[in-house]
């Protein structure tokens, strides 16, 4: 057989596969640039930094995606064989590999540091002193909200006092509990006022998810976990559970209201207090 040497051939299979990859690239560009479906409306300060971080990662990885998939598609179309053409024999290029390795590591390290600044701003800084503190207790299948009231002190809770209406066992005889309110499934906060959540669970792991605020924290039985954030866009939003917790996981939702002013919040608070 003759020693075949010829350029790569454009073949039907190669072109079709390259075309499918092109569709993939175009579809992904459409989805991530035109954004027909995107993040829920942003309603928190912290959320801005998460969205920005996502945007940076999107650009970096988007470029990598388009370039790599594009090259793959191009090579597939360009380098087919339809007779006895021979491939090139080269199979090493230490310099190119070193450059690519170092380049990738540098880009990823930069992303790590950028991400860490955002992470630190949530977890390694304390909530401001004027934060609204709410104790949130997840259970199968509802979110319970315990507010401390104007005295700023939470009444004690005791498992033995739990009833169908007193779902966290609030001890009404405890003086600080007098102005506390217990609400199931409804949470209010005030725009631009920091909120500190103390998260607990009565039974299994749940996850406190506020999609619009970019807040998510697992509620773990046996743990009390504190997170804080600043809501900044008044409106009505939803609360979801983001960790499989049993049969009713899908309906473990709550209603979040970000009141435009402290006065609006106080009105709601007074209504709830009257019903305790």
């Amino acid at each position, binding site marked *: 057989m003759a020693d075949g040497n010829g350029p*790569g051939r454009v073949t039907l299979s*190669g072109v*079709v*596969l390259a075309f499918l*990859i092109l569709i*993939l690239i175009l579809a992904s560009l459409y*989805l991530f640039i035109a954004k027909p*479906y*995107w*993040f*829920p409306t942003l309603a928190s300060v912290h959320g801005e930094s*998460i969205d920005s*971080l996502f945007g940076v*990662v999107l650009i970096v990885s988007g470029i990598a*995606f388009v370039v*790599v*998939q594009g090259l*793959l598609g191009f090579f597939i179309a360009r*380098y087919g*064989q339809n007779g006895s053409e*021979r*491939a*090139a*024999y080269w*199979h*090493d*290029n230490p310099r190119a*590999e070193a450059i690519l390795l170092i380049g*990738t590591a540098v880009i*990823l390290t930069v*992303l*790590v540091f950028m*991400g*860490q600044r*955002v*992470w630190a701003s*949530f*977890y390694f800084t304390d909530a401001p002193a004027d934060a609204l503190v709410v104790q949130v207790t997840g259970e199968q299948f509802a979110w319970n909200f315990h507010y401390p009231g104007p005295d700023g002190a939470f009444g004690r809770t005791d498992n033995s006092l739990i009833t169908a209406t007193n779902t966290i066992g609030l001890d009404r005889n405890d003086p600080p509990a007098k102005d506390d309110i217990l609400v199931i499934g409804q949470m209010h906060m005030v725009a631009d006022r920091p909120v500190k959540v103390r998260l607990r669970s009565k*039974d*299994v*792991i749940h*996850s406190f998810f506020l*999609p*619009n605020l*970019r807040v998510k*924290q*697992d509620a*773990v*039985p*046996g*743990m009390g976990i504190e997170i804080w954030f600043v809501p900044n866009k008044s409106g009505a939003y*939803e609360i*979801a559970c*983001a960790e*499989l917790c*049993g*049969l*009713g996981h*899908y*309906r473990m939702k709550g209603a979040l209201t970000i009141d435009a002013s402290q006065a609006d919040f106080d009105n709601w608070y007074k209504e709830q207090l009257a019903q305790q």
Partner: protein
Amino acid sequence: MDDAHAAEHHHPQLGFWRKYVFSTDHKIIGIQYLITAMAMAIVGGLLSMLMRYQLAWPTSLSPIMAKIFPVAFSGGIMEPGFYISLVTMHGTIMVFFLFTAVLTGGFGNFLIPLQIGARDMAFPFLNALSYWVFLLSCIVIFSALFVTSGAPMGGWTAYAPLSAVPQAAPGQATGMTLWITAIALFTASGLMGGLNYVTTILTMRTRGMSMMRLPLTQWSLLITAILGLLAFPVLLAAGILLLFDRMGGTSFFLPAGIIMNQMPLAGHAGGHPLLWQHLFWFFGHPEVYIVILPAMGMASDILSTFCRKPIFSYRMMVYSMVAIAALSFVVWGHHMFVSGMSPFLGSVFTLTTLLIAVPSAIKTFNWLGTVWGARIRFTAAGLFALGFVSLFVSGGISGIFLGTSAADIQLQDTYFIVAHFHLVMAIAPLFAAFGGLYFWFPKMFGRFMNETLGKLHFWLSFTGVYAVFFPMHVLGIGGQMRRIYDPTQYMFLVPQQPVNVFISIAAFILGASQLIFLFNFFGSIFGGRRVTEYNPWHATTLEWSVPSPPGHGNFGVELPTVHRWAFDFAVPGEKEDFIPQTVPATVQAKH
């Protein structure tokens, strides 16, 4: 010659049962694993079709479904508990009983002795035992589907306390116990296999087969076996601790003060739910590499063969697999960023996770470098290998978002995660497995699969998997949570529902197109075109130097001698565009 060895060569003709069922021949055992894994794939796939039906039309009444599944669809709508059982069983079956089994058990068994030049595994009886324990584990997990109190519903990740307290959900009683039992049996099977593979590859390579002349398939199987030996025991231990919490009154994972179904859970204190997650993911993260590494190894070898070009930078391909395996043990916390784990640990795991992206990127560049300047033969096997590269890139890149802990806050437990792990842990390995099946089928069965049907299978599958899984990124960005029986319960998710419908329809078409493969595979075993040459693909590795299928003992009277690496394609000045590993180096020197 010891007795066992003498017996091997002088035994009388084996009966049907000893030859094809209770065989200790690695080739038969490999095929047994393949077929059993395929059966599990069909079960796991059907479960996902039901899931997609529910997600697309969560509130539609279906009298037909009520007829077929009177309990699960009572009243014409799926029961929420059934949905979560589907999710749990689909994930469990696919990760363990399909992917780990088909790649490590199926291809590992068939290929290792052949590609290293050995007659069989180091421990043939142990090998057979590993298959029968695996089959038993399949039967146990399958039976969990039919438990009257309900199939398990803890997700494949079985987080405590949901998995540790039998009354936490229906199905968490007997169903969950069966789940733990099946997983324990599976890990036992995996450990047996892992011991065999490591011993065989390290000690039974034929003369001339140095480590750096091994095909990448073998490197990947060796590294995977080591990962399995280190990781599976942790899962086994965690499962045993979980059984003790459930039945033995212990509190490894259970703190005091749990109120379940309005009743205090007595008799437990001092345990921590996060301990389960640490143990599970310490195993779970290496596990995903146990799935992807053999896929990478096989895809690399198949890609090189059909590009008619050496794999780009073989050395770096080996080193990067070793780096991935080593790093895989220090990234597990990226599954736990919002779990309540210390945020400081979250920072550490972000660093290690983005580090592990580096060797994966190297491998991707090397696949590109292989295709650049190639002369590609677009066989079904070659197409699947090319598809693997595209899918791995897509799945890998979404990992960058998730590894960045702060971005993961919003994306954790959403469909962005589902998209990521399906592409990178399920679909890419699936394509590598399909490529492997089309490639090695002639060697296994002495017949070809039908190439036209194979290509049709590829085109439909490649389009289908992207149609199903790419839009899921968008669902996750929009906030759709995982394991949610009815997304339309949430106002903020309702506008995205058309995407769910699109995905489900694509999934049904994708599922149906797999029937083409099944028809081709089983039909070709009996009626495929017979293979008349040892090496129909003009490949270089040792299995292509023997008949199709190889005889008992694999190689004739003398074991082969290896003279070169596995990638001598398109060597300049050579008559053929490939040189098998057994061809002495002097042949080249003449030119």
